[in-house]
């Protein structure tokens, strides 16, 4: 199946000379939840802004549903709903008016039944006649989602949807996103929270300094998460790993007082028992041990550092 969004050789250089995006190539599959991870200033928002028509690309092409975002911007943009990171709202409008406005702006004829459904799904129905200025931050965020959904988009961009949102509300937001995916909407979300990507995404992309450095199925990424590391603190300092232990690929610390061993918790056998037996046979005495699991965060941090 053709991708719903395809980004090819996309670069963005700002007027100041700052290169925000550098030759980005990315394809988003129809119906998936794609999480775009990256530190602040990595280019997440710039990438979204270009796809949505808020910023002009310097080089490269983007197509949404096969429509070029520049030449065929009407068709491309009609398919997209955008929820930006900042809470930009018309403070003195009512919820109903602002959501209806968005639908008209995107070229759709009035459909009160649809607006009603969107507001009910987002638990905003009883606030429909309230002015936005009177709503809490979490409600404002949901108003922005309602605006983005008012014109029945096929692709939804959520830029940091749960930034500054409490745990309860974040869980609620996840449910909304899952329900949307179930209704056939493709979702691209950016986030700082790795937990969020783990919880929600089908695929994860990592962007840093304007470059996509990894795109992977979450399942594959989670397999890497299955890796654990065992550190054995030695009673006596050793200079080299005894040859009998070569098969374990142990790593000796600089001071010679600890060795580390990588193993897979999801494997048939971890090899820990035999390692300990072999260590004793080799006359290495252990004073302490600890284990550590590499998280998505570790993978992320190491990826970002490499660049």
């Amino acid at each position, binding site marked *: 199946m053709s991708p719903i969004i395809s980004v090819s050789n996309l670069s963005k250089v*700002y*007027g100041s000379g700052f290169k925000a995006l550098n030759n980005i190539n990315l394809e988003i599959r129809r119906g998936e939840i794609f999480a775009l991870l990256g530190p602040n200033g990595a280019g997440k928002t710039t990438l979204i802004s270009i796809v*949505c*028509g*808020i*910023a*002009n690309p310097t080089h490269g092409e983007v197509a949404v549903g096969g429509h070029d975002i520049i030449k065929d*911007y*009407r*068709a*491309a*943009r*009609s398919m*997209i709903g*955008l929820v*930006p990171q*900042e809470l*930009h*709202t*018309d*403070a*003195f*409008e009512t919820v109903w*008016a602002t959501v209806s*406005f*968005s*639908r*008209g*702006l*995107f*070229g*759709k*004829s009035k459909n009160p039944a649809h607006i009603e459904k969107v507001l009910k799904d987002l638990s905003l129905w009883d606030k429909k006649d309230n002015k936005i200025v009177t709503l809490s931050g979490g409600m404002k965020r949901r108003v922005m989602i309602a*605006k983005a959904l008012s014109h029945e988009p096929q692709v939804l961009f959520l830029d940091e949807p749960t930034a500054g949102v409490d745990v309860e509300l974040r869980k609620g937001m996840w449910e909304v996103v899952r329900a949307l995916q179930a209704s056939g909407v493709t979702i691209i979300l950016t986030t700082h929270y790795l937990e969020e990507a783990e919880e929600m995404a089908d695929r994860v992309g990592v962007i840093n300094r304007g470059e996509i450095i990894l795109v992977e199925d979450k399942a594959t990424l989670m397999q890497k998460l299955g890796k654990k590391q065992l550190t054995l603190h030695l009673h006596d300092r050793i200079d080299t790993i005894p040859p009998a232990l070569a098969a374990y690929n142990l790593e000796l610390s600089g001071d010679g007082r600890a060795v580390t061993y990588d193993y897979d918790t999801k494997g048939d056998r971890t090899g820990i028992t035999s390692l300990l037996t072999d260590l004793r046979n080799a006359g290495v005495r252990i004073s302490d041990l600890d284990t550590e699991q590499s998280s998505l965060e570790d993978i992320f941090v190491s990826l970002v550092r490499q660049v």
Partner: protein
Amino acid sequence: MNLHAIRAIYLFEMARTWRTLLQSIVAPVVSTSLYFVVFGAAIGSRITQVDGVSYGTFIVPGLVMLSVLTQSITNASFGIYFPKFVGTIYEILSAPVSYFEIVIGYVGAAATKSIILGLIILATAGLFVPLHIVHPVWMMTFLVLTAVTFSLFGFIIGIWADGFERLQMIPMLVVTPLTFLGGSFYSVNMLPPTWHTISLFNPVVYLISGFRWSFYEIADVSVALSLGMTVGFLVICMVIVARIFKTGYRLKN
């Protein structure tokens, strides 16, 4: 053509007008009434006729123009500057609308508002002085052309402005002086030759002259020239707006 979008923007902007009714409509009407009291009744009673028209009557077209010019600029510049300021512009830029449609929505609403205001001020003037309009169709033509032209001009200012100070600067420092010196309160023919020549470089002279002609058939410059200058300014503003959108100036970067 995304008619739904034009309608949405237009109605949104008009809703803002009704919401701020006091400041949008009532304030200009009050200030114009003060002009009539001061210049029309108090000082005007000591001034003989200008070009065969009593002074109070003479200043009516100029006062209407004064309000229409400043209000068109203020409405349109604020209309587009505010979404930029609060950030809601993201939605306009990401919507499937052409630049032309955005301009029709914003400028159309701003012009509508100042035309309504101009007519209200005209009606208010009727309470102070006897009014007669020789060419009502031309009067409306000049009113609409001026409102649209200066709303476009205001739209440009709103995009260019990066702070409230700049938003106020052009109307206060450029447009108001030009309007006062453009013959709102006098005929430029009353000026000494040097000042008369200088006045002819003021575009507002042509707007007011043509507008006044439609009322009383008296004009400082020929009507054709007035019309030509007004349309000329309209075209200049359209070209600038087209360039702004083409380059994304102050909107997309």
